[in-house]
């Protein structure tokens, strides 16, 4: 590996960004290409649909979706444009997701530390960590809301968004717990013995060896956690009936799918962008940690 100095340091992120934009353009082009050549009514083989419909109701033009964002949400006086409503909803969901992500990261990392600390704890806890992800979120959502209603901690009033954040954290903790555990266990035998030969305390070994060594594993886990926190928040909004977020917006806009097909697509695009923004924000964390990621590449 060559040292990352000077302009080369920025070339790689720029190239990655360029590839990302190109992928987006390509996706739009494919969408339009299918609209051009695909059959309007789709294709059926022995009664089963094998090709989707490409008519304007099922697949609005990309530019129609973009244009729809600039026009008012409804015909009611003073209604905001779809784009503005989207931004508001995204901002709400993003904040809830961040709270859920933070809780998930703290919880996931704590679990990883506990599991790393003792083999018995790992054997006891790890299967539950994996099992937790097999429980469907929609089954949990009403339960969490129900428990939330019963929580009275002094002045704390349990609000609906807190339930949403909790459910988001339930998804976000998983990659963090798994990634951090792998990371904490990643130092080579030679390094561990080096610290042992120096009579370093377990805490010192943790701080100066295991924690830095876990960075290449934890960063992708944090990114993944951010994306799943957004998904968790959106699903939780829908299943708990929380107002104000993008999840609610998707449901609301879906109702106008037949008459105004570009509108639900706008909400779906917004949810996608929100996930990207969340993962992107977390990626920024990695910028200052370059030296800990050398092991990732070499």
């Amino acid at each position, binding site marked *: *590996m060559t*040292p990352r100095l000077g302009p080369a340091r920025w070339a790689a992120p720029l190239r990655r960004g360029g590839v990302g934009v190109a992928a987006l353009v390509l996706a739009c082009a494919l969408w339009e290409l299918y609209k051009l050549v695909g059959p309007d009514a789709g294709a059926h083989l022995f009664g089963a649909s094998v090709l989707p419909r490409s008519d304007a109701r099922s697949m609005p033009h990309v530019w129609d979706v973009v244009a729809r964002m600039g026009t008012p949400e409804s015909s009611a006086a003073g209604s905001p444009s779809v784009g503005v409503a989207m931004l508001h909803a995204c901002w709400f969901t993003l904040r809830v997701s961040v709270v859920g992500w933070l809780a998930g990261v703290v919880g996931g990392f704590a679990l990883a530390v506990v599991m790393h600390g003792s083999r018995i704890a790992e054997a006891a806890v790890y299967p539950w960590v994996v099992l937790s992800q097999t429980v469907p979120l929609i089954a949990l959502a009403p339960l969490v809301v129900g428990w939330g209603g019963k929580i009275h901690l002094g002045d704390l009033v349990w609000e609906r968004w807190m339930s949403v954040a909790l459910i988001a954290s339930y998804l976000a903790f998983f990659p963090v717990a798994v990634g951090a555990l792998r990371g904490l266990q990643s130092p*080579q035998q*030679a*390094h561990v*013995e*080096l*610290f*042992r*030969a*120096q*009579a*370093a305390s377990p805490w*010192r070994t943790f701080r*100066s*060896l295991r924690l*830095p060594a876990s*960075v290449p594993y934890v960063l992708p886990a944090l990114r993944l956690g951010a994306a799943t926190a957004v998904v968790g928040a959106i699903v939780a909004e829908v299943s708990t009936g929380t107002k104000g977020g993008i999840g609610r917006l998707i449901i609301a806009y879906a109702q106008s799918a037949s008459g105004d097909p570009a509108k639900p697509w706008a909400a779906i695009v917004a949810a996608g962008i929100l996930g990207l923004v969340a993962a992107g924000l977390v990626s920024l964390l990695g910028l200052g940690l370059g*030296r*800990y990621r*050398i*092991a990732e590449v*070499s």
Partner: protein
Amino acid sequence: MSTQIPTGTLAPARPATGLTPAVEARGVGKVFTTRAGAVTALENISLSIAPGEFVSLIGPSGCGKSTLLRLIADLDAPTSGELSVFGKAPRVARENQDYGIAFQQAGLLPWRTVRANIELPLELHGVGRAGRAARATELLELVGLPDFAGHFPHQLSGGMQQRVAIARALAEQPSLLLMDEPFGALDEMTRERMQTELVRICQESQAAVVFVTHSIPEAVFLSDRVVVMSPRPGRIRQVVPITLAGGAERSEELREDTSFFAAVTEVREALHEGHVDRGGSGGTAPTSTPRGVDAR
């Protein structure tokens, strides 16, 4: 067993500067319990290493030379016998930081600069920033890498990384240096240069060295004594004192000296004894041929 040589009684080539030996092993054994049963890695090892003495452990794979080093470093515990480092239990010696250690893999922390890697042991033991920096500068000078202080390990060649690892092992001015095939992964040219440097470094630091190696010329060039070991179970077969022209001065020319070749032959014959019958080998040490020992 009649095959055991009372090596502990052999006088070190270099006179001891202190009364307590750097390493003293009396009847040390190590048995690993594996799923397949008990494996005897070391049996009845008796050896005394004087302060400032350079001793190499040589022998075929599986002769337990690395295991012996790990026992001295307290990375493993012996299952029988007595082992002391500067008169203390190995655990105490480890906790007192009486030794520095270097492995075959340099084992530098990739996220630390060369300087920070060298400072690691000092940092772990609470030496202040200024003290660490001064010592690191000294060591960088010693291993010939003053221009690479700010580099990261992956920017260095294998030989340079190994020099950093040696500098790190020397950071706390240990009176004992434990090295497990530190040049094993290097090419021959780099290896010879590193050996010459190690001789110089050892003369400057006055540390006793236990050096594990596969290479006969390397062991001969570096050592005051070469401990030849045999495998299954790991035992000391013979201890060969090395007397080269020029005494402790080991220069490049020495590699072509007749005394060097004579010592190499002597160690080689000690290694192959019991496997190839070569007759008289100079008769420097009272040896008996171990039976049933498989030497490569």
